């Protein structure tokens, strides 16, 4: 895995496949999808609410890749370029559904998180569910940044590269998202 969390295996072959796909070889593009679908779907799954939405995000990402294939210059590995497109597709989806998620019930947030070392804490699955619900209240930019930063464990520089935003903007967004999440998860007693 490289710095951006994408597969670096056989980068030259990726470039060959891109060239073949541009020339009209469908099988070459199918091979690119086969190689990178895991990375794309794992990233998109952090933003999707259900398998159907994940399927849509994944397909939209590869359709956009197919449309813009000629703009891939090959200066950076194909995986980096693909990750940027994935992030942009997910960001667009977050902005689209912002309104729908405003009314999500946050009753589940009252569940306390015990120390995982004691073995009495909530399952990882439950933690994900709680975070998902709390993050659904964030602005799309904040949610994108905090997901890449905290759940995908990427650095500020990587997040800046993926989103195309400045590092200072990423830091500000991450800080605001964290503050908002603390408010949502801890209740509103801070106000």
């Amino acid at each position: 895995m490289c710095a951006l969390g994408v597969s670096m295996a056989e980068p030259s072959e990726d470039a060959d496949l891109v060239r073949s796909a541009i020339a009209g070889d469908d099988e070459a593009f199918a091979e690119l999808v086969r190689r990178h679908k895991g990375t794309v779907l794992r990233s998109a799954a952090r933003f999707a609410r259900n398998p159907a939405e994940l399927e849509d995000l994944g397909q939209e990402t590869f359709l956009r890749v197919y449309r813009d294939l000629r703009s891939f210059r090959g200066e950076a590995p194909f995986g980096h370029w693909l990750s940027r497109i994935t992030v942009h597709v997910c960001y667009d989806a977050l902005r689209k559904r912002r309104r729908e998620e405003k009314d999500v019930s946050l009753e589940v947030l009252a569940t306390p998180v015990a120390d995982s070392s004691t073995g009495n804490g909530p399952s990882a699955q439950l933690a994900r569910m709680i975070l998902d619900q709390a993050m659904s209240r964030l602005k799309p930019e904040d949610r994108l940044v905090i997901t890449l930063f905290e759940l995908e464990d990427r650095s500020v520089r990587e997040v800046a590269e993926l989103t195309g935003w400045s590092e200072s903007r990423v830091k500000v967004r991450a800080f605001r998202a964290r503050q908002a999440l603390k408010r949502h998860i801890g209740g509103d007693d801070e106000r």
Partner: protein
Amino acid sequence: MNDKRHDRRDVELDRYFALARLAPPDISGVERNFETRVMARIRESREPWYAWAWRLAPVFLALVFLLAGWSISYSPAHPADPVTMLASGTQEVALLENLTGD
């Protein structure tokens, strides 16, 4: 007091993140044959406009049948009054027949 609460919330949030990182999303269902579905959508998006025209053929056919049925069943009432016929100016032959008694 307030700072302590902030610290507690930071720790709690970090715990959530750490736990959530332990549970990678399950993508196995979507991953299966994903490339086949992507390629199908790509082929679909590449179809020329006339491929869509052929798909609309049944709609056009139904429209033709509807119009044909309507035109067969449509029979406008001929005005019996010769003056009305004269005023409309479109029923000259019928008017002539009416006046000559043919």
